[in-house]
């Protein structure tokens, strides 16, 4: 434990000096989050400095190997980093689909060259990625990929359409599932490829949500030429990569937009509202929500602890299901607590829009119903 104590002391000292005051407000909102990427506009110098300093240490992706831009930290060290950051209420320096999803998949399935090429820019926040899985009409049936990639010497020629690509209009690259064998059974003819969004033939169209925002796009591929070495994993084995990545996506979404870890207790939020806790039903719901949120936060920790020795696998469906349903409850409760103040679009710092956005949590990345079916069949081994 001495090594860890020393690490903690060092970390604390470093953070004291290097975390800009402005970055110590602990806020995680659509407005304060740093997504990075070629076209990223920093909201302040402090945001830029904080990213640069953390990236230089590899602490934007603390557990990745140093060779690929990570911090090379052990799970125990990673926990200490998180704890020390939480202690000073530090913002996360960088969030991205590259960190949450593509990175883990590349570390597992990528070649050494691919890792060297793609991971460090993710770690430094230089390249922003988006995900191209869903297709129009496919819904929960992710394997029904229609976008086709035909071999054209050392390239693929990609044609088709993706939907629900998060921030595709702001991303630099996309990782996508494409069909490379149309005659094979549907899970067996899919490949996982990386496409530069600036390639000719790629276009996007934002989808307006009920929240009034457009975090998702439709993405179109019209004869897009993509080098074959940008495929991750074997040809026609992309479903393996996709499944692996999905478990990471579930874990990511289950965190519920910062509502759980580091988020303020919902009851405390309600207590600050004029009438937030003045009826028995709201007080009871806030208590239950807080109990469940704390237990869920511990569960995320426990699963991460467990992931050190064995993959989480299908149980990640639980994290996804429970975390997103909880985040919906949390927002529902804040809306009720806010009363008529939270009915105008600009009320409570845009709470109505956040609330409506949460309704997609239990749909995107696999619906709650799909998660429950996964648990039923693969964990409980019920028939059917």
């Amino acid at each position, binding site marked *: 434990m001495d090594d860890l104590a020393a690490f903690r002391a060092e970390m604390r000292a470093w953070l004291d000096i290097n975390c800009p005051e402005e970055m110590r407000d602990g806020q995680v909102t659509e407005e304060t989050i740093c997504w990075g990427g070629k076209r990223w506009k920093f909201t302040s110098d402090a945001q830029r400095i904080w990213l640069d300093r953390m990236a230089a240490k590899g602490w934007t992706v603390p557990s990745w190997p140093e060779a690929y831009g990570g911090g090379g930290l052990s799970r125990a060290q990673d926990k200490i980093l998180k704890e020390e950051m939480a202690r000073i209420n530090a913002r996360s320096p960088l969030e991205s689909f590259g960190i949450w999803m593509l990175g883990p998949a590349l570390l597992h399935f990528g070649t050494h060259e691919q890792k060297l090429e793609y991971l460090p820019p993710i770690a430094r926040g230089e390249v922003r990625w988006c995900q191209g899985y*869903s297709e129009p009409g496919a*819904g*929960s*049936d992710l394997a029904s990929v229609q976008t086709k990639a035909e071999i054209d010497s050392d390239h693929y020629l990609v044609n088709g359409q993706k*939907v*629900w690509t998060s921030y595709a209009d702001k991303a630099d690259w996309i990782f996508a599932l494409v069909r490379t064998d149309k005659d094979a059974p549907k899970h067996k003819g899919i490949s996982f490829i990386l496409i530069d969004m600036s390639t000719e033939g790629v276009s996007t169209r934002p*989808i*307006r*949500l*009920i929240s*009034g925002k457009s975090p998702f796009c439709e993405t179109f591929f019209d004869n897009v030429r993509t080098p074959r070495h940008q495929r991750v994993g074997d040809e026609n084995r992309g479903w393996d990569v996709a499944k692996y990545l999905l478990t990471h996506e579930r874990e990511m979404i289950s965190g519920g937009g910062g509502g759980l870890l580091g988020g303020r207790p919902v009851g405390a939020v309600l207590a600050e*509202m*004029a*009438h937030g806790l*003045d*009826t*028995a*039903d*709201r007080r009871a719901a806030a208590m239950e929500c807080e109990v469940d949120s704390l237990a869920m936060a511990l569960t995320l920790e426990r699963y991460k602890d467990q992931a050190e020795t064995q993959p989480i696998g299908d149980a990640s469906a639980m994290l996804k299901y429970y975390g997103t349903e909880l985040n919906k409850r949390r927002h529902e409760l804040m*809306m*009720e607590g*806010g*009363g*008529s*103040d*939270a*009915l*105008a*679009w*600009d009320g409570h710092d845009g709470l*109505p829009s956040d609330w*409506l956005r949460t*309704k*997609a949590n*239990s*749909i*995107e990345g696999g*619906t*709650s*119903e799909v998660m*429950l079916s996964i648990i039923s069949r693969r964990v409980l081994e019920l028939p059917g």
Partner: protein
Amino acid sequence: MTSLQKTEDEVMLADAARSFLDDAAPIGHLRKMRDECRTYDAELWSQMAELGWTGVLVPESAGGSDMGHAAAGILAEEMGKTLVSSPFLSTAVMAATALRQVADDRASDALRKIAEGQVIYALAVDETSKHEPDAAELAATPDGNGFRLSGTKTFACDGMAADRLLVLAKTDEGLTLFDLPANRDGINRDPMDLIDSRDAARITFEDVAATGDDVLGQVDDAMTVLKPALEAGQAALAAEMAGLAAGALDMTVGYLKERKQFGVPIGAFQALQHRAAHLWCEAEVTASAITNAGRMLDENAAEATLAVSLAKARATKTAELAVKEGVQMHGGIGMTDAYDMGFYMKRARVAAEWLGDYGYHAGKVAALRGF
């Protein structure tokens, strides 16, 4: 009490309303108004007047159709199904009920104008984030023979379109209800830009002059006039929400039959079937409370509080469940602005808060039931 089953006349009224609204105000009508940044449609309002709807609670002697509260609920329910946006509740239900409590010529004239569709009323009651009429603080200070009103109101539904406002104010010995023209000097109205794309205002009163003639009912005794009006509004709003829930459920059941996943209609999945069936049960149970509230208001209004609060509490929960299940069962498409389900969800949230939320009304039920 009269049967809780709808009478033949009521069924006919509902059918007629439905067929008019399907044409004149389907959900697309609300969408169009939203896209054009409008919150009031004068044409629709005048059609409602022609149909006798604006006079649904106006005595025949004042030119109304005087169909009663159960009928008003039936109209509201049909409006809820396609999210019809109009000042029906504010004006034809609440203001009309308030004015009816006062037997004088001015009230009678006002009622006639309501029946004719010539005037729009809004209630300026709430001051904080929750409905709490007894706690109104807007001050009406004596000034000569009259008053000066100063303070702020919020969540005044239909407040921007309104010609007149029913303003709840604090006077020396209690609360007093004023009936003021909305454009009187010192009254400032700001649109609230609500998520349901409907009309609501924040209203400030800066030293607004009012005379004794502007008082509706008696000074220091607002509730004699306002309580029946609020209860009528709560019952009609509950009916609107029941209609909203029915509309969302219908849309969802339709989608369950039509949408295929993994090769079968998703409505064949038992987990969804049972949830849809449960929702239908909730809607059925709520329907009884809605009809009961209308009957009580028509037959024994003085004792209707329990029935009204029961209806609003139930309708709030049912509508909330209907829109949650509606969006979730639709999946991605339900989240898009291009699809109509989101309109149901947003209106359900606003209606949940208007005129008292679930906890407010469930608390009234509990108190009236002895705990």
